[in-house]
């Protein structure tokens, strides 16, 4: 029925867009966004060389993953949003089943079960859920009249809540909160009424003590350490003290590429993965960080602009949610490493070493380009 609305409201839409169609639109890719992602990935590899202790192998392996990520992006961009919307409930259902399976049969490390081992490879169902949850919620809300009613909000929250709780059970508090956020963003962009938002915030505030109760010991420890890292400088507080030292000692101009003493002399833990931002801060200084943040702003700005250009309800909700979730990753990572937020295992998008994160993020941007480039084709 929405299709008809569109036909009536925008009878000339097709012509208008067709005129602007260039070579790029056949690829269903956004040139600017690709350029920004490419730039950021290159910057990431440049830093990774230093952060990995000048190990070319690391850089090459990561470059291959980034390449694979771009392939995934290009493939997903070709899918029509309608296809995505049609598959979303099924993939979501499969994802929930897999999450249950992880809890029952999964393999893990450090007291958490996150992986499903299949012959040949292992994967984290939570990663799939990161992509599919916003699609699912958007798919659900796009078929309703907006702003959503209380009932629709409640069902959406249920859709968000199930995987969130399952992932929390793994336990992986950081990921579960990020996934919940990606779903909640859809709700927020759908025009949910402000008094619902206020009410939800009040409920969340009241639920915080409850959250503390269900946390595992190591998670509580992280929070305590965050509140007072100096209480255990050689143990739990080590990471955060060392990362703050690395950042602070970088100053405005940094110690120079490959010359960061904190990172090169192994004082900084996880320097090539979650804490890589500290390497940038130490070696390239506030200037280097600012350049990186500008790149992120460009990507987010371009992404949000693209979202506003999507006329399809499902598409624009998905697009905005993906972009904002991307920002949350950036913010949580930098906030955590600089001591603003407790330590949660969130990599810095496109810079941290690791394959899963890159591929998932690229897939997200593939979906973004899909809904953007297919904006008028959904009408057909």
């Amino acid at each position, binding site marked *: *029925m*929405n299709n008809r*609305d569109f036909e*009536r*409201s925008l009878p000339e839409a097709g012509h208008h867009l067709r005129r602007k169609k260039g070579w790029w639109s056949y690829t269903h890719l956004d040139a600017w966004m690709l350029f920004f992602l490419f730039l950021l990935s290159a910057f990431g590899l440049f830093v990774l060389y230093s952060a990995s202790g000048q190990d070319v192998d690391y850089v090459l392996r990561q470059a291959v993953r980034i390449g694979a990520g771009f392939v995934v992006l290009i493939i997903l961009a070709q899918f029509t949003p309608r296809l995505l919307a049609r598959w979303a409930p099924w993939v979501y259902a499969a994802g929930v089943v897999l999450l249950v399976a992880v809890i029952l049969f999964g393999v893990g490390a450090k007291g958490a079960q996150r992986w499903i081992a299949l012959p040949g490879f292992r994967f984290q169902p939570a990663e799939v859920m990161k992509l599919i949850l916003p699609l699912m919620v958007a798919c659900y809300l796009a078929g309703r*009249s*907006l*702003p959503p009613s209380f009932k629709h909000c409640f069902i959406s929250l249920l859709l968000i809540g199930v995987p969130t709780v399952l992932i929390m059970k793994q336990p992986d508090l950081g990921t579960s909160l990020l996934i919940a956020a990606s779903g909640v963003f859809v709700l*927020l*962009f*759908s*025009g949910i009424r402000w008094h619902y938002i206020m009410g939800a915030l009040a409920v969340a505030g009241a639920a915080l003590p409850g959250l503390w109760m269900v946390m595992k010991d190591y998670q509580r420890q992280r929070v305590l350490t965050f509140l007072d890292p100096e209480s255990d400088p050689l143990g739990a507080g080590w990471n955060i003290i*060392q990362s*703050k*030292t*690395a*950042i*602070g*000692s*970088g*100053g*405005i101009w940094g110690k120079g590429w490959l010359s960061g*003493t*904190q990172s090169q*002399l*192994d*004082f900084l833990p996880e320097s090539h993965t979650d804490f890589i931002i500290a390497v940038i*801060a130490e070696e390239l*200084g*506030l200037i280097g*960080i*600012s350049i990186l*943040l500008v790149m*992120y*702003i460009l990507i*987010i*700005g371009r992404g*949000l602009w693209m*979202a*506003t250009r999507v*006329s399809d*309800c499902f598409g*624009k*909700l998905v697009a*905005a949610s993906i972009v*904002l979730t991307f*920002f949350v990753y950036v*913010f949580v990572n*930098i*906030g955590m490493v*600089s*001591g*603003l937020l407790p330590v949660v295992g969130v990599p810095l998008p496109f810079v941290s070493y690791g394959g899963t994160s890159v591929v998932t993020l690229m897939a997200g941007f593939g979906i973004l380009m899909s809904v953007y480039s297919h904006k008028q084709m959904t009408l057909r």
Partner: protein
Amino acid sequence: MSRFEQLKDHSQENRTFVFRVVLAFCIVLLLIGVLLGRLYYLQVVQYDRYAAMSDNNRIQLQPVAPTRGLIYDTHGVLLAENRPSYSVTILKEEVGKQLDSTLSELQKIIEISGKDIEQFKKRLKLRRRPYETVPVRFRLTEEEIAKLAVNYHRLPGVQVEADLIRHYPYGESLVHAMGYVGRINIKELQQADPKEYAGTNYIGKLGIEKFYEPMLHGSVGMQKVETNARGRVMRVLERTDPVPGQNLQLYIDLRLQQITEKLLQGEKASIVAIDPATGGILALVSTPGYDPNLFVTGISTANYSALRDSPDLPLFNRAVRGRYPPGSTIKPVNALAAIDSETVLPTHTVWDPGFYTLTRGGRRYHDWKRGGHGKVNMHLALEQSCDVWFYDVGYRMGVDPMSDYLGRFGFGQVTSLDLPEALAGILPSREWKRKTRNLPWYPGDSLNLSIGQGFFLTTPLQLATAATVLANRGKWVQPKLLKGVRDVDEDGFLRLAMPDIPNARPYPEDVKLKHPKYWETIIESMVAVVHGERGTARRIGKDAAYKIAGKSGTAQVIGIKQDERYDADKLDKRFHDHALFLAFAPADKPRIALAVIVENGGGGSSVAAPLARQVMDAYLLGIDPTADKVVASGTDAHE
């Protein structure tokens, strides 16, 4: 109708969406602003603090231990050197809880005994500083070092460290003369300057090594190093070189020392020889000795208890700590006291029937010679060591002149410069007896003192010192081991300079006699002891190429009851008399003064005097009596 509403809703929906996207972007910018603010705070506002923390992380100030000074004998023979040695150490902070597994890993790679582990754990408890490595095993072989190097990466916190370890090439020959160094302990570190000793693992424990510790130790150096998070040094940023310790040259004549030691082999004995011109100690032997090298890196319990429990007391430095009744060797000083205090003249004559009594029919004080020496004056009394003459003059002068003169010869006090373990012995006097025994001085005490028995106790070093003062006719030279500090001047020549020694021990003033001619009177009598027709030590004087002034002594170990006679055959060896001899030569221009004590050796003239003669022959004539002996007996001449 509903469609219209939906249409209206739709455009409303779109406006809401765009509004919220713009709002979201604003929040994004705001939060990025927060991040930038946070980074600005860390990197600009707090820059100094974090830069300092980062430097503290990576830069460590490491002490560089100075090289310990070497010790040479009077001719420049090296007596104490430093040898490179490699040990495997563990850094506790790095190993953490895996200590036991690391140790067992190490045991798989190189040989480490249970004893080593036990000692290591003990050392770990006594660790002095954080981030100080603790040695597990010393003296690694090349092969062991290579094996460890291969496995280095698997063993964080394990290091092979090079160290210079003190080595005494002549082992037990010199241990009582020089002492030794050992691993520094907490108490010593607290007493020493902790900064100076920051990198030092060894400290002088005994003897010369202890006394000249500040000079031998040198001055600590420092290096600024960059370390990684595991404490491994990546590079040296800055370095202040340590100042090596000073090289010392002793008066000890290694050849004489070794000959003397060989002469005393198998005996519990001591010989101290002094150069009267300088006070330099030419030889200081106490047998049996022990190998000081055992103590350097820490002696095993088994080895230590063997040394400690040996009935011959090898750890006991008889030369400076052995307190013996000097017996008749003290008679020249007592005779000098008697004549110079004008109690009697040298011509004073006494009839010696073989005993002396204070009152008619009272307790008999025996002469060593049954039947006595008949009519004796001072000269004869010294030559034949007549006790009765000394009883008589001892009784006449009383304790005070004797104590006074004996004190002026250095008895009852430590006069040596650089022998930190030296004991003062006991010089009895009225006050001493009142203070320590709360008893008055009896005339019988004076009789005992006059022949060097009773309360009087002296060390071999004190006797040799007295011989030196006699040889010098009263002129005091302080007994000392240190000849000087070896230094190379600008022209490359070796120079020897006596250093200033803070709080150097004082020594008595020169002995000034009222009648200086009595020096020669006494020395003539001492010469007669060796060269006189009836001298007690005439056997060693017969073929001597130079004139020896000497005095024998035989000190009783157990009290002999009234009217009982000493019979060596009936007594256990450990109750046999101590044999003593005190001498200097040549008598007119003395070049060596010495004292000999052989515990339970028997007669001073028969046992101790020949030893003295051999030592003097070795020094004055260059004869090595032990070499002949060795060749004759056909055993291996070289050690």
